[in-house]
């Protein structure tokens, strides 16, 4: 399985979000070696802070009777793998577990909201009903960080209470994984406007 190929497709969705002035996070869901859904953040457009890329794609999959032939199945994402540019937030990590996702691969960690180990391991903590899933980071990590940095470099006038970023410059050096500096945490800090 070529993880970087699928993460590359997720990065294309992140670029689309960037063009639309949304926080640039993108994802694809893969089943039987093909993409069944791709999506990106739409929180600003929909005025709904929960419309992260993963939940957008999930709604498309569950609404499609070819992709979800049995709508009453308990785990509609069994046998499905998620590739997403940034670690799923706690909300999305829980949604994925409730739907029985099989595996998750992502680019960079999310130290503010990360639900696959950075802030809370929602994929593996005890739950009375839903089985845990594996989540692995580091696929196209640099590219995932750079698109976020480019976004946060600009004045995000769409966000409530935008902060002045006029003095920021785009840094291109990326520290090694698992030794995240404070600055880097700043760049990857948020999934939402």
């Amino acid at each position, binding site marked *: 399985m070529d993880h970087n190929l699928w993460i590359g497709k997720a990065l294309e969705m992140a670029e689309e979000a960037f063009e639309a002035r949304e926080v640039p996070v993108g994802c694809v869901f893969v089943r039987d070696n093909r993409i069944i859904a791709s999506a990106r953040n739409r929180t600003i457009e929909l005025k709904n*802070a*929960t419309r992260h890329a993963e939940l957008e794609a999930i709604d498309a999959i569950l609404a499609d009777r070819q992709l979800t032939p049995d709508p009453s199945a*308990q785990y509609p994402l069994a046998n499905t793998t998620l590739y997403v540019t940034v670690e799923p937030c706690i909300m999305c*990590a*829980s949604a994925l577990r409730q739907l029985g996702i099989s595996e998750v691969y992502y680019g960079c960690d999310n*130290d503010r*909201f990360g639900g696959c180990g950075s*802030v809370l391991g929602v994929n593996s903590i005890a739950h009375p009903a839903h089985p845990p899933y594996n989540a692995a980071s580091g696929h196209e990590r640099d590219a995932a960080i750079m698109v976020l940095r480019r976004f946060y470099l600009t004045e995000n006038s769409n966000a409530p209470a935008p902060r002045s970023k006029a003095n920021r410059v785009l840094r291109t050096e990326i520290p090694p994984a698992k030794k995240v500096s404070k600055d880097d945490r700043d760049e990857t800090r948020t999934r939402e406007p």
Partner: protein
Amino acid sequence: MDAWVIDAPEIKDINPLLDWTRKTGLDRELRHLKRIRRLQTSSETQITILLCASNTPIPPLPPNYSELAPYTLAVPARAALNMPHLALKNAVWPTVYAPLRPDPDEVRALEWDEARRTWVLECVRELVDGARRARVSGELPIAAFLPQMPGDTNADAVKALTHDTRTSESHPLRHAVINLVRLVGSLQSQSTASAEYFLTGRSLFLTHEPCIMCSMALVHSRVKEVYILIPMRRTGGAGGGEVNIVALPNVNHRYRIWRWHPRERVERELELGILALPDNVDS
């Protein structure tokens, strides 16, 4: 639990040994225990210094103390919650006293004035009505109610009542909270004026403690406070059991959580019977 300890030969040796534990970082371990134990016998004072948990390797001792032999000792595993426990634990090793503080929100609730109480009870009534209607229509009896605050003149502050629709929509994520956030967003899409986070400053009433997904959705939505009737100890994300999203480090927004007091619950027994859910459901 067991810990490594070392006997100080003389009183003058205490400070050099404590300096060494500070330098090696050993003093950051076992914060619930005091560093030194003094045992007074008729003839002498035996001084013992705490090093670290017995499963931690001990760094090399300072040169002039290399002949001392650390040994392991059973010590209390946790701080003392009350005075009788403190006495029992101190007999083994001097222990930190850390009583549980009364829940500050519970204390504040006692200070609610009559108008606030009336408002809260009215909101709970509307909330439970919503859950009852959900149950009658074949859904899980989980509801979310976003009231207008008393005297709120802000026309944008929409009022909303939603319930769980995972059954009718064949969608396991159509929880009451998610449905509410979506409804409020769609109502506000029509008024282009609003550039707020979408539940900023708002109060929300829930029949059941929200699951981890919904607890985090409320962080993302910047809700101010949440009133919860029934804790979901095994699946909730708002402190009824193991997980409390708003107590996590790094999370960039926290809402206050008000919990229904068990004494009140008895009076509403009938309604809560309507609200009964299996304990493995994510609400």
